[in-house]
Each structure stands twice: as structure tokens, then as C-alpha cells.
């Protein structure tokens, strides 16, 4: 995986101006989540500084996806708190909160009867209240950013997995979120298309987006993450810099996990 840092993006090169993001901080305080009586997440606390990338790793069933779904309240937390830019996310209406948090899913979840452009534009006019012309114009720009300007009128079934996921990322970004959540965004992709999507994600991080990334791509976590969190059985087992976790795993569980995946 070659995700070495970039030199091409520096000002002065001929490439178009790439706008920067203003990611917000995110903090989880003793977050506990349950499905019925079964607690799948217990007392998770986590701080994500503005504009940084946090990768969450861990075996299946460790509660990684549930954690993401608690942040944007697709699943309501049982107790604890989520602070977005310092304010409790549990005090605002979920619809309002979710406009500020973008999410990208493992299976893309694009709208199959909409073109790529309409997929991106839909929430812009229906949620943000833009005119349809304005929404389409912004959607077109966002698609261009992810390299899909020429595929704007394709429906999802006519796009490869990698292209679909890039449309999904453009769709989330178009809402101008303060935080982006990625739920195993590359797990369903053909291997040769994984890198393109990961590079795109790394680029977002570099431009100042706050990101929480659930991933099985250890190379990505090591190179891009500011913070890596290892979860198992609904708890944070270890958290720290990539070097801390990958080079000096302290817990026996992380050592075993790494020996299985690396």
C-alpha cells in the first residue's frame, strides 16, 4: 500500500485549487449501547481532535460499527454522551445532527434508481433546501473531485464498486459535514479498487476533515491515522498513535489480533 505523503498538492502547482475542510472535534464519554438487553458497547470514551483521523480496528463483533452508529444516532445510545464541537449530540434532533455528520457504508447504499449526480444532489435540495439547479451544480463539482465527472449520469449498477463508493463519499461530502464516519468503506471492493478509495479518504484527512474510520486495512491505519483504537468485545482495549499500537502492542488481545491480520 503506497500512501506516502504528497508533494503534488502544495500551492503553486498547476492542479486546481482544492478547498479545505473545517472538521469539528468529537468526544465520546462513557458511551454504552445495547440491542435490547444485550450491551454491545460498554463505557467507551474517546477524543477525536478537529481535523484528525481516528482508525478503529478490531475483530468482528467488537462493536466498531455500533460505535459509528451511535455517533450519528442511527442507533440511539443507552447511556453516556457524544460531544460534537463540544456540544452534546444527544440534545439535538437526530435529523439536524446527521446533517453535520457524513457517513459512508460498507455496501455504498446508493439509490439505485438515481444517477450518480442525483444521488449526490438529492439531499442537497430535499434537506438543505437548495434549488435543484444549485444542487445539481454542487453535485457535479463534488463528483469531479472524486474523479467521476464523466460518470455523473450513470446509475449505480453501471458503476464499479470503487466508483460507487466514491459517489457515496461525494454524496456525504456535499452536505458539508464536520465529521465523516467510514464503516468498512473498502471491505466490499475488488482488491485493485481499494487503494483508490483509501487514497481519497487519506486526501480528505489531509484537507482537514475529522474522520472516524472503521477499517480492516492496517496499512491505511498505520500511515494515515493520527490515532488508532483497538476494540474488542464492546470495549476500547488500547488507543494511541499508530506506532504505539502496531509496534508496541501492550495487551495480549491486540498482540493476538495483529498476529492474525498482519
Amino acid at each position, binding site marked *: 500500500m*503506497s500512501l506516502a*505523503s504528497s508533494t503534488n498538492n502544495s500551492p503553486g502547482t498547476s*492542479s486546481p485549487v482544492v478547498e479545505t475542510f473545517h472538521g469539528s472535534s468529537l468526544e465520546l464519554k462513557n458511551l454504552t449501547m445495547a440491542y435490547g438487553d444485550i450491551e454491545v458497547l460498554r463505557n467507551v470514551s474517546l477524543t477525536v481532535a478537529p481535523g484528525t483521523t481516528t482508525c478503529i480496528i478490531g475483530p468482528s463483533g467488537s462493536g466498531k460499527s455500533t460505535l459509528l452508529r451511535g455517533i450519528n444516532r442511527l442507533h440511539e445510545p443507552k447511556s453516556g454522551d457524544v460531544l460534537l464541537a463540544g456540544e452534546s449530540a444527544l440534545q439535538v434532533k437526530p435529523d439536524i445532527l*446527521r446533517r453535520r455528520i457524513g457517513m459512508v457504508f460498507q455496501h455504498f*447504499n446508493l439509490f439505485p434508481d438515481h444517477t450518480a449526480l442525483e444521488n449526490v444532489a438529492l439531499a442537497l435540495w*430535499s434537506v438543505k433546501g437548495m434549488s435543484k439547479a444549485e444542487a445539481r451544480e454542487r453535485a457535479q463539482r463534488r463528483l469531479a473531485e472524486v474523479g467521476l465527472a464523466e460518470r455523473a449520469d450513470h446509475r449505480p449498477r453501471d458503476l464499479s464498486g*470503487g466508483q460507487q463508493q466514491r459517489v457515496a463519499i461525494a454524496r456525504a461530502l456535499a452536505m458539508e459535514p464536520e465529521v465523516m464516519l467510514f464503516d468498512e468503506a473498502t471491505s466490499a471492493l475488488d482488491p485493485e479498487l481499494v*487503494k483508490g478509495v483509501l*487514497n481519497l479518504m487519506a486526501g480528505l484527512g489531509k484537507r482537514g476533515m475529522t474522520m472516524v474510520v472503521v477499517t480492516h486495512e492496517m496499512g491505511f491505519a498505520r500511515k494515515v491515522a493520527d490515532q488508532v483504537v483497538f476494540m474488542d468485545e464492546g470495549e476500547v482495549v488500547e488507543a494511541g498513535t499508530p506506532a504505539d499500537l502496531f509496534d508496541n502492542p501492550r495487551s495480549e488481545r491486540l498482540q493476538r489480533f495483529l498476529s492474525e491480520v498482519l
Partner: protein
Amino acid sequence: MDWLNTLTRTFFDFGAMAEVLPQLLGVGLLNTLIISIAATAIGLVLGMVVAVMGISQSRWLRIPARIYTDLFRGLPAILTILLIGQGFARFSQSIFGPSPYPLGIIALSLISSAYIGEIFRAGIQSVDKGQGEACRALGMGYAKSMALVVVPQGIRRVLPALVNQFIAIVKDSSLVYFLGLLVSERELFRVGQDAAVLSGNLSPLVLAGIFYLVITVPLTHLVNYFDNKFRTGRRRPSAPTSGLKEVKELDAASPLISGSNT
């Protein structure tokens, strides 16, 4: 060959058929179509209401929808038509005048809405849960995500079943004759039946039957056509493309992506 002669005279007396043809066309076919189309239109609206109630979170919407469906789906059509057509005759007289025609349409609408409601509900529930989640993650409310994304996909899937339902309504529209229609309001079956009684010959009924088939058989084939089309889905025809081509395209496309790919 005496029996063959008898058969021909009983069922295929072209003279008797020719005599009743103008009435079958001008009165019978017209009324059958008016009753069926009106009952289907009302049934579609009511059916959508019943379906949306039926999948609601609130049991106070769900339970009435369930009872309504069980009732009108469980009773013989003829019984519902008679109960409504005669039971509400006085009430209907003050609105529509003495003709039982509107009540016949309403009774058929109620019956068909129960079936159509179930068709819609099945269609909506068959839409992948990720679709609704993607909508909510973008900040859409429940109503908006249903109206803009989930319900349209559900409807598209059940178009064949809806055509089948229309065929059933066309056939059931013959039952309205039990309410005693005015001469100008008779539908196909009643026109054929009257002529058969007058001429002592079944040929007019056979011709009425042929008219039913002329409506229903092409529709049955339309269903198959729809079914094939929607099952296979339309793809842009294209030769197989290597995933590597996409990687190359991507590298060339975006400053954001290629920038971080050294």
C-alpha cells in the same frame, strides 16, 4: 353431426352476437372499464395509505390497517358488494342519487385496496434497509426518506403484482350487477346476460367473455414483460472492462486523489 350444430347454435350464433355487439361495445365495455379503472384508482390511493399505516412504528396505525386488510381480504367479494351496495343505499341516495353504481365502485375499491395495500407493503418492506439508513444518515426525516427513496423503489418492484390486481378487479366488476343497475349502467356481463335471456341463446355471453379476455390476456402478457424487465434490470451494454483501467483513470482524474498517490 347434430350435436355439433346444437353446440354452434348455443355458443357461436353469430347473428345473436352481431345483434348484441353494439350494446356490448357502447355500454358494457365502457362501464366495465369505468368501474374497473375507478375502483383501481381509488384502491391504489387507499392501498398506499393502508400500506404506510401497516409498516408504521405506532401500533395505533398498524392495528387498524391490519384489521381493515383482514376484513376486506377475508370476505367474499359478492358479500362485501351487497352489504355496502344495499346497506348504504339511503346514504348514497342523498349524495349520488338513486343509482347503486357509485356504491358498487366504492365496494370494489375497498376490496381492492386491501389487496393493493398488502402488495405495496410487501414491496416497500423488500427495499434494502440500507436505503433508509443512507437517507437518515444524510439528515432526511422518516417521511422524506420514505417518499423520495424507499416507496418509489418499492412500487417499481410490485408493478407486475399491481397489473394482476387490475385483472382481478376487471373480473370482479361483473359482480356489481347484483346491485341492480340501470340499463345504461350495465357492464359487460350484465349486457351479455340480458341478451342471452332474451334470445334464449348463450352466444351473447360468450361474446362478453371474449371481451373480458381481450382486456385481460394482453395485460397478463404485459405483466410477464414487466417482470422480466424489472427482474433483470437495465444495464448499459458494455464490453468487460479491466479494473486496472479504472485505476489508471483515477490516477489521471483528480488532484485530490492522485495528489496523495505518489
